[in-house]
């Protein structure tokens, strides 16, 4: 195979973006960094002049044999995945999208990963390098297009999940992986306690599981790998075949659990592996277990404090997906402890002295 560079939607507007940032920095104008604007619900609302990334799109460089792709941040995830699929490759972290236009830059900035996360790794685990627009409007390169690189601090991974508050992601290099040759999804009728026990037991074995969820009396599993092992594991686990589209619906929050009966706020609880059900007053039908139980979506009217205490007690944290304007928590992300917050503020002050990048998006104070 040779180098592949797609011809579609090739726009490099990095210079114009740098210019806008430079001006904003000089005039201390807050910027709201926008791709396809499909992730605005995730985080606090930002008041600012829009910095539009969506037009900065296209694949800069893709070499399937190197397992590396470099892409502009405004590229739709779907376009990137289509280009990878031509070479039978994929983004292993299964980035969720919340609209057809959802961009890869937004996926990295929000740091959200799909059902394969516990087995394959998170977004940041696949980020190899980036071009970042700094507060002075300079386009700088960190990391690179190689698998291993420990020169300098890992600025690229720091940008993943920082929601644009430390700089603007312009281009991103990812490690990509071959698609598995075989895949089979199944469901088993199991009560919650049995399902969690089974997941712990299966987790200790070298099985080709790449997704595990539980909801409403059913355990859902996805197997991926070579044909021989998938067949053998399928025979061993039994159950009923499941349409693989289930995982896409779960990834993009399009499963009926998310689209129906939305009178309560939606929360995401992130918990250590093998955490038992939390002692919270939430009916089982309002909880969706993903990531073998490490990620739990709950619909609840409980207050933020109660939820967060229970999660923190278990070693995790809670994020509110419902914007405050629609009845969600005013602070969607779990507040930081004072020492950790101090270093967050220090970093923000160093990399964005005038607070122009998505101010208040993560936390009100910065």
């Amino acid at each position: 195979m040779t180098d592949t560079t797609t011809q579609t939607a090739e726009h490099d507007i990095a210079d114009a973006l740098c210019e806008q940032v430079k001006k904003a920095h000089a005039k201390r104008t807050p910027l709201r960094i926008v791709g396809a604007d499909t992730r605005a619900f995730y985080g606090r609302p930002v008041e600012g002049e829009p910095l539009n990334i969506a037009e900065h799109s296209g694949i800069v460089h893709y070499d399937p044999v190197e397992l590396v792709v470099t892409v502009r941040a405004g590229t739709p995830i779907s376009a990137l995945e289509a280009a990878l699929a031509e070479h039978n490759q994929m983004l292993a972290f299964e980035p969720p999208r919340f609209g057809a236009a959802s961009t890869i830059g937004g996926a990295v900035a929000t740091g959200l990963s799909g059902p394969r996360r516990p087995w394959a790794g998170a977004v940041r685990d696949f980020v190899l390098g980036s071009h970042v627009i700094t507060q002075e409007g300079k386009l700088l390169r960190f990391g690179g297009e190689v698998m291993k690189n420990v020169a300098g601090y890992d600025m690229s991974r720091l940008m993943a999940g920082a929601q644009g508050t430390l700089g603007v992601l312009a281009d991103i290099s990812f490690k990509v992986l071959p698609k598995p040759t075989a895949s089979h999804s199944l469901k088993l009728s199991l009560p919650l306690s049995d399902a969690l026990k089974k997941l712990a037991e299966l987790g200790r074995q070298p099985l080709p599981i790449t997704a595990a969820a539980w909801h409403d009396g059913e355990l859902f599993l996805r197997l991926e790998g070579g044909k021989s092992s998938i067949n053998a594991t399928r025979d061993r686990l039994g159950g009923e075949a499941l349409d693989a589209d289930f995982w896409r619906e779960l990834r993009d929050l399009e499963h009926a659990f998310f689209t129906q009966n939305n009178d309560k706020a939606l929360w995401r609880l992130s918990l250590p592996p093998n955490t038992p059900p939390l002692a919270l007053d939430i009916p089982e039908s309002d909880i969706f277990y993903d990531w073998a139980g490490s990620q739990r979506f709950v619909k609840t009217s409980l207050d933020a404090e109660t939820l967060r205490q229970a999660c923190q007690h278990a070693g995790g944290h809670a994020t509110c997906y419902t914007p405050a304007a629609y009845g969600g928590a005013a602070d969607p992300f779990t507040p930081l402890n004072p020492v950790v917050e101090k270093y967050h503020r220090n970093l923000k002050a160093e990399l964005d002295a005038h607070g122009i990048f998505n101010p208040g998006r993560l936390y009100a104070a910065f």
Partner: protein
Amino acid sequence: MNIHYDERLDGELKSFEKADVLRDLQTSIPSLALLHREEDLRPFECDGLAAYRILPMLVALPETLDEVQTLLKRCNALGVPVVTRGAGTGLSGGALPIERGVLLVMSRFKQILSVDPDARMARVQPGVRNLAISEAAAPYGLYYAPDPSSQIACSIGGNVAENAGGVHCLKYGLTVHNVMRVDIVTIEGETMTLGSEALDAPGFDLLALMNGSEGMLGVVTEITVKLLPKPETAKVLMASFDDVEKAGRAVGEIIAAGIIPGGLEMMDKLAIKAAEDFVKAGYPVDAEAILLCELDGVEADVDDDCETVRAVLEKAGATDIQQARDEAERARFWAGRKNAFPAVGRMSPDYYCMDGTIPRRELPRVLKGIAALSEESGLKVANVFHAGDGNMHPLILFDANREGELELAEDVGGKILELCVAAGGSITGEHGVGREKINQMCSQFQADELTVFHALKAAFDPDRLLNPGKNIPTLARCAEFGAMHVHNNELPHPELPRF
């Protein structure tokens, strides 16, 4: 290069007297083991990069978190630099002491605090050896994946500091991919937890930033690592080639076939011969290159993949392909590779190990460049290569007792790294920058990028007391060494004095 801290190039230090610092620390932390006599300091004068030796002012061997906190608080108050050291196996001089600083040795933090098989994680102290974690997890059928060649001796705290890799990185990742949480102490003596036992944590990903930060941002005091179920089986194929380029292309073909091997290593003729003489691994000494390809996972899949890889290797022109028949033969095949460094050490009084990474497609060009440098300098170079992930370890053979040969080896090494940067790679894949590659950082990064690194550092350690003179060069140093990128024909920071 001049290994000593140079205030002109590395930044000014505060002035203080050794006796005053010693007295202050003895008074404020009476329980702390503190070494100060030359004969006691001597064993700590270098890490795994033994050509670089400097006696520290003092060595501290704390046993409790409290001691670490107070030590850092006092050093911060007195303006005394602190270099943190684990097992001292690092290969880039990251734990090289500073004459006017305290060497903080974490080797007494060696407890495995817990292994939780159902959550598949282990909580350990930083002085625990890498291999000891896998040994503690083995009864549960689990292991800790990153396996640097020094895993029998290196400590997990050092692994975090360097973001250590190993021969299984392509499939299982580096340290950063396998650490869930670290507890650190800041230079101000505060404790802070980064990451979480959950799969993510609120706020910035400071855990990712801490991995590979070479002790410049904080001192790691506890680590939670992810454990994986041991693969059901692992099989290894060894392919011989009469041409290095063919071997390099075969690597790409294996990946193109949709296979991610557990390990994919390449050795050139000189490395093969050295390894064979040393451990009798059964390597073909007449081959120009060999590839070792390990496939692991569920037995049935591994058998299928072995067939696919065999076909790919044949098509790529392998002159011979052997599959290890049993576990003993598999161990022997690997023993040659894992002992390649000491094996080369037997051929030459000294060797200098490089750690550049490149996109794999650039391998033939870079190997040619290395051969030319070898010929020009008269120093032999053996190549071992984590081929799957493009991480080269050229070993430059030299004799330090010959006038000027160390400097010549360093010069060749520096040029090899510049070849890697020019090929779109990096000066270090897994060994770190440390003191060793501080000048080459100037060829990999522009002044503006280094300035961002300094800003990150300032957020954690504004007075630059943690491991000064390592990892990130000052702009003054880059100006001095002239390797700094020149953009649009403008010299960056013309206001800086050039010495």
